[in-house]
């Protein structure tokens, strides 16, 4: 069974801090994603990676960056956290096959104060 592990379930950071959210998958999937989930807005794609060191912007990349140095690991970076980045962050992975379903991690609830 695919396992997508996010390093923290809950995180509280201060405004201006640099924040790292880590995600690891164990199924050798090529695609990895970072989504943000807010009430009434559903899941919005922040960044997508289809290979090591490759990345594409999603719908809401502003204020975020990503890193994929190894195939199994995809990191989301908030360079300078702001209160409007308080949200649930979901990492997902999928194989490089057209229209493969996404496998999600348990999520990180980030609060920026």
């Amino acid at each position, binding site marked *: 069974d695919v396992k997508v592990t996010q390093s923290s379930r809950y995180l509280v950071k201060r405004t201006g801090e640099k924040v790292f959210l880590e995600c690891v998958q164990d199924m050798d999937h090529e695609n990895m994603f970072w989504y943000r989930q807010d009430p009434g807005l*559903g899941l919005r794609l922040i960044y997508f990676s289809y290979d090591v060191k490759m990345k594409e912007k999603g719908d809401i990349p502003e204020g975020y960056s990503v890193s994929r140095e190894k195939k199994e690991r995809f990191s989301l970076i908030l360079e300078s956290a702001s209160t409007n980045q308080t949200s649930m962050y979901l990492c997902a992975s999928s194989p490089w096959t*057209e229209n493969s379903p996404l*496998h999600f991690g348990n999520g990180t609830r980030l609060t920026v104060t």
Partner: protein
Amino acid sequence: GQQVMQIPQYQHVQEGEDFTTYCNSSTTLSNIQWYKQRPGGHPVFLIQLVKSGEVKKQKRLTFQFGEAKKNSSLHITATQTTDVGTYFCAGPVTTDSWGKFQFGAGTQVVVTP
């Protein structure tokens, strides 16, 4: 840009009743996926529909893909408390790399015993 819309946003159902949630896309989709997120959990893949007019069943859940491949529905028969959660539909982003999906805002289902 491409949009995926779901209605209703909230659905209160008496246990034992039926209900339907709808998903509409602004563009023709090659396929559509449905996910379920239990309270406090992460989205879990339920099913994928590919063919025009396709109907698939999973126990009390019936999924349908429209003839024009621009809309889909999920019908739940004899709702149970285990059906509580948020149901998302997702369509592939047609103008971009494989693997990217646009999610609807979700239908949050509350079941009253």
